[in-house]
């Protein structure tokens, strides 16, 4: 349901902010699983995905910081990876010519193969329509035509409710040293000054990855990683296309571990699968605590352990499972 500016409420905004957290979080296990399936960690594909995963974590932090600034401590639910359902991607709304190069795709967890790199490109595909548009606000987050339109609505919606912004509330700042050109990655101020910070975070998300409306794929220097990115000026879509294009040139994607049929899982295989599920559940709790101001000491160790467990699953021939 389309909303007028007057109908737009803080509750609507909070729903949108939670959705932003969900959107960003969905990509992390999906991308990490593809990355850790690559046997050779020095392969550029591995390294490119690594940089995107790090930025998805950053985006999640940004979304959560914005949510907290508006009084919402976000939840972190287990994402669903089924069929071809990627949150908020309805390719029926897109130009078939734009989508065609990235078919077929899958939304199920798996190794870096054609269907997964296609899905990764589709998730990050920019909104090429750069013309003047009326920004619409909807009650339901699923009503937006693209992630770009969603983030535009978030920007507008935040602006309309800027008086509700309270700076310094449960802000997380884990990535600042990796972005020397970025003034700040938290919402430390209230109201108008806080809104400037909120909009900066939205721009960071959309310029690095999802939802940008632009004709080139380079990231402005302010949003570029200055520490550990082999291709800091390329956005996610460009990075994933580099992998896809490189595979075309070589005739294949990098060698990956392959998941065996579940029926062939050994007791050891089942054990490592269960450990991953257990640790991922623990991670969701830690993230919720992190964005809820609880400063959980185990957050990063658990996050790292999940990475290890994904790798461990692949080494056992087990396709990672998160819930």
């Amino acid at each position, binding site marked *: 349901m389309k909303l007028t500016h007057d109908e737009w409420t803080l509750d609507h905004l909070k729903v949108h902010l939670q959705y932003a957290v969900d959107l960003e979080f969905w990509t992390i296990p999906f991308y990490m699983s593809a990355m850790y399936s690559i046997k050779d960690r020095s392969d550029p594909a591995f390294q490119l995905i690594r940089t995107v995963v790090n930025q998805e974590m950053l985006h999640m932090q940004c979304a959560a910081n914005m949510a907290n600034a508006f009084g919402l401590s976000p939840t972190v639910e287990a994402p669903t990876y089924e069929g071809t359902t990627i949150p908020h991607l309805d390719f029926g709304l897109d130009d078939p010519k734009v989508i065609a190069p990235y078919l077929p795709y899958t939304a199920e967890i798996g190794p870096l193969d054609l269907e997964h790199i296609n899905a990764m490109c589709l998730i990050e595909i920019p909104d090429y329509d750069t013309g003047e548009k009326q920004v619409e606000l909807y009650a339901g987050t699923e009503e937006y035509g693209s992630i770009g339109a969603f983030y535009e609505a978030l920007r507008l919606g935040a602006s309309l409710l800027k008086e509700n912004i309270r700076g310094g509330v449960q802000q997380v700042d884990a990535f600042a*040293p990796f972005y020397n050109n970025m003034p700040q990655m938290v919402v430390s101020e209230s109201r108008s000054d806080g809104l400037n910070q909120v909009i900066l975070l939205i721009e960071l998300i959309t310029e690095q990855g999802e939802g940008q409306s632009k004709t080139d794929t380079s990231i402005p220097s302010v949003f570029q990683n200055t520490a550990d990115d082999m291709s800091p000026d390329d956005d996610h879509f460009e990075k994933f296309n580099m992998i896809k294009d490189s595979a075309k040139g070589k005739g294949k994607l990098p060698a990956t571990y392959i998941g065996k049929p579940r029926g062939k899982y050994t007791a050891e295989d089942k054990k490592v699968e269960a450990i991953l599920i257990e640790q991922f559940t623990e991670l969701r709790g830690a993230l919720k605590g992190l964005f809820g101001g609880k400063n959980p000491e185990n957050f990063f160790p658990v996050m790292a352990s999940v990475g290890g*467990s994904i790798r461990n699953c692949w080494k056992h021939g087990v396709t990672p499972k998160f819930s």
Partner: protein
Amino acid sequence: MKNNSIFRVHPTINFARFGTSEDYILAPETSAGLPQDGTDTTGGLPIRKGSETKPVTSKDLRDEEGNLKKQAARYRIYAYDQANTHSYPEGAGTEVVVGTKLPDGRKVVDLIWSSHLANKKAAAYNVVNNKGILAYKDAVPQLRNPETHGDIDSAYRLNRLMIDAGPRAISASSNEGAKFDRCTRASCVRKGGKIKKLPEYPIRFPSDTNSRLFEPNGPLDSLGEMLTDEKGRLLVLASSGNAVGQYDEYGVPIQMTGDLNNVGWFDSAADGPISVTLKFDDGSTEDAFGAWVVCGDPAYAPQIRNVVSVWDDVYDMFVRELGLQPELYGSKKGQKKTAYKASYRPTFAADIQPVFIACDLQRWTANLPPLALRAHTAVRAIDEDDDPDRTIMAALNFLRNPNKDETNIGTPLMPLSLGAAGTSFLTVTKTQYFLLEQWSKGKFKKGRGSKLGPGEAMDVAALANCLGGRYVPGIEVSYTIKDQEIYIQDWQKSGAGPFRVKHYPLTYRKLNSETPYLTSGWIPLHDMADGLQPGDISKFMATPWQTDYNSCSIHATAINTDGVNESNGAETTLYWSWPSQRPDAVYVAEEVVNNVLPKQKWSIRGPGTFAVNPAQAATFQDPLQSVNDWDKIGIIVQGSNVEIGDREFSPDLYLEVQGLLTATGEATDPVASWPFNANPSKKPPKCPPH
């Protein structure tokens, strides 16, 4: 009773460290950072003078005038049953001192110790920081001080550039000491343990051939000293660590222009063989298998364990090349190909946990970000009862694999410090990695594992307390320490045991005071297997030592790779060079209140250290200041051994004490949180359009 004992000196390689004080403490005999029975104090701390094992506290590090105490290398003799010398570890060994009665009834009446210290740095080849040992492959690097005429072995060059204090021999029962200085007469041991004076020995110091020298910390007239303790054990003291420079033709001290190969400069580092002859009450004598001493840099963070230590490197080489433990590495019956044995089970406490502890200890000397600290804490918390698959180290997901091409991958792989020559990042050794892989697969043992004999434990401890992995060129020793050619390779058959440097046979006959006795000595990759002369280990190090210690704080990876960034990160991102051995960022004990940590400070800080470019942070900006002020740098000590008034510090903390570079409250360069970056290089000016 038939004499079936053999005698060996331990540690096989030990380290005496510089100090500006005449007083000294003793080199540690425990391994850095590792738990010790019955105490909270971890291993690696030096030992109090006159004590068997009591570790120092912060008050023992300087004398009353504030001078840094030297660290003496203590050597002991152990007797072994000749029949059991074919495997490692032997787990045996009985210490022999003056007065010891052997099983065959003989009593030790004297120990005649001898050594010979030299410093060949100025006469040797340049250190090539991006080539390492490969600089010697089918070639040799450029000579240091090439303006001094002659080839590497010319008497002209050696007379002017080599510092040779000559040999000294002392009797333990006579409680003698001997200085390796310019004016003490050389002496050696002859048949029957007799000490012979060598008045013709060509002792060489820089002042012999330079009428005038720039001596900012006094004349360079000694390379050290040796003496014995009350039981007849040998103590070797290093020099004061000073350095001197020549004047140029304008009468100006030659400026130090780099960190490794400064022309016209000499330092007082040294190394050489240790030998001992045992004299018995029946008039017989026996020689022990000797050892080696390296005199060099102070230990500024003695308990902060290196992820890769010299021990790890030497052990790795002996395992893979000299048949140290066939049950761990070797060939299958009837096959030539060698490999690690899948059946081998490492012991968690001895083989795995030290790496995890080292990982966690880096926080006390490097400016790690908070998230990394928490991850490191989780690594340290892993114990032998944990299922590896449930730990943060599952699948060794964050460990760089030395068997693969991963040295250019930085984050998130560990260790995240700079690597060996030609590589961006450090890896654990292949043996460390194999042992960790076995643990990761659940193939490991709990408990203490194979027990080292007391001498063997000292060998491990001495080497484990030194910087390994990144020999560019290193702190105590360089890459040559991994070259099997320098060791007694038939360690089983000879009875010498492993890790023992082969002594080049020096007879000290036909001496001529005008002609250098030592030659340029051993170099790698040139089929020179006849042993090392004095000075053949330290000559691969920087000259003077202070400039390298000073500069090797933090760098971009390109410093290792011909100036081109090959890492997966930004070319300006800075990483630590030797974070455990050369502290970068530290917590000052004086500033800790109620065990709450203050902000970190650079280890080298205060006037003369302010850096415009973060790449030069934590260093003396003028290399001459490093020569003058190295002894004022603080030492990192565990909280349990920090003594400041009646304050109590947690043993969980490792804090800087006895630093003299700044006083409390003085401004210093702030320590950035990692990752931090060097200033970008300036673009060349554009030419006007044609």
